[in-house]
């Protein structure tokens, strides 16, 4: 990676930033110089925040959500319905669903979606851990809330095939049309999905 133009510390920082997702060589260079030119307090806060997150935040041993304890807040909460598990790709999806206040069960965070071309198969995700949780007979319903894109759909297909034979009720979130969007601008796939997933009122 180090084909950089600068020497020593500044190039090391550019290289380190360039390894972050979504940051190309140009952005890495821009951020590095921004840090170099800003107050030392801003830099110190950044260093501290990075250090703390690595020290303090772990992954819940039950559901895989980010947590400062061995088990996350939701898994520890006795008021949550332990018979239902909602399966999501990332921790940020838990936050999004929590915001709707529609769901009072527990979660399982996979850590991504199946994408063979990227080398991500079932073994690279927390699917074995999910199966272990399902061997507990109190769980009766699984809601698959993976992203409404192809990787998410394929992951849901894979999980449904695995879970259904266990006699557990499996459902998939109906992906509706984007809220606030004009029907005419909705693409055919999304529109098709919305029709397929429609519920009787």
């Amino acid at each position: 990676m180090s084909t950089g133009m600068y020497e020593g510390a500044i190039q090391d920082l550019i290289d380190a930033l360039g390894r972050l997702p979504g940051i190309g060589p140009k952005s890495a260079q821009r951020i590095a110089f921004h840090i170099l030119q800003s107050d030392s307090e801003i830099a110190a806060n950044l260093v501290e925040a990075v250090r703390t997150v690595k020290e303090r935040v772990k992954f819940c041993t039950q559901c895989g959500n980010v947590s400062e304890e061995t088990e996350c807040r939701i898994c520890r909460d006795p008021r949550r319905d332990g018979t239902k598990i909602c399966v999501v790709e990332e921790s940020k999806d838990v936050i999004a669903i929590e915001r709707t206040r529609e769901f009072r069960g527990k979660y399982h965070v996979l850590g991504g979606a199946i994408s063979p071309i990227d080398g991500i198969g079932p073994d690279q995700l927390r699917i074995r851990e999910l199966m272990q949780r399902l061997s507990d007979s109190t769980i009766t319903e699984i809601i698959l809330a993976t992203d409404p894109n192809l990787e998410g759909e394929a992951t849901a297909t894979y999980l449904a095939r695995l879970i259904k034979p266990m006699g557990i009720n499996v459902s998939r979130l109906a992906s509706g049309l984007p809220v606030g969007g004009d029907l005419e601008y909705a693409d055919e796939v999304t529109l098709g999905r919305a029709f397929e997933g429609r519920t009787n009122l």
Partner: protein
Amino acid sequence: MSASQTKLYRDEAIILRTQKLGEADRIITLLTKEHGRIRGVAKGVRRTMSKFGARLEPGSHVDIQMHSGKTFDTITQVEAIMNYGEALTEDYQRWTIAHAILETAERFTQQEEEPAQQEFQLVVGGMKALAENRYDSSLILDAFLLRSLSIGGYEPSMTACSRCEKPGPHRYFSLVGGGSVCMDCRPSASATASSEALELMQALLKGDWDVAEKSEPRHRREASGLVTAYLQWHLERGLRSLPMVERA
């Protein structure tokens, strides 16, 4: 593309791969009919309100308009020709096979400006056959792999000896030696191949589906093994998706 040429261009393409970029964008790798393999940025595609919707997903056959840029081209318009992806996700085996086809196509084509019309037609045909469930999915993959090897100039010999051209079928199959080899020419590390497996591979390469579909499961497994090993030998790095393909 030089500055004197038009900055805006249009082409037919199949989406090979997508990668997240920043907050809401994606880098899309496409195999186009006229411009070969290109990478383009789709701005805002991950927002549910995006005008691109679900058209820019792996396996989609699209009509696309691009704006050429310095590092990346930017995707400005997309019309769906066929969304194969949707049908492929309904069956996990087919989904893994679709990924193997897309990854192979990526590896057999050169980036930028190198037209790859044969490979393009091959990928479109593969996606169509898979989505329509026209033949056994595993056979569709092996046919695709053999034809890609052939287009790439690595077609294995399945009848005559690849070294002395003595008519076959021969019992020995060599990855290094270009496929079928006779008793006298075989290198020490040759595998053996049944005449039925070789006949199946020949049928898949030529598109003789009547013959291919009459083959027995054990010969299909044997042919898959030979094709996969031969392909991996000819590619510098192994394909990531291939070990995840569910074979019958």
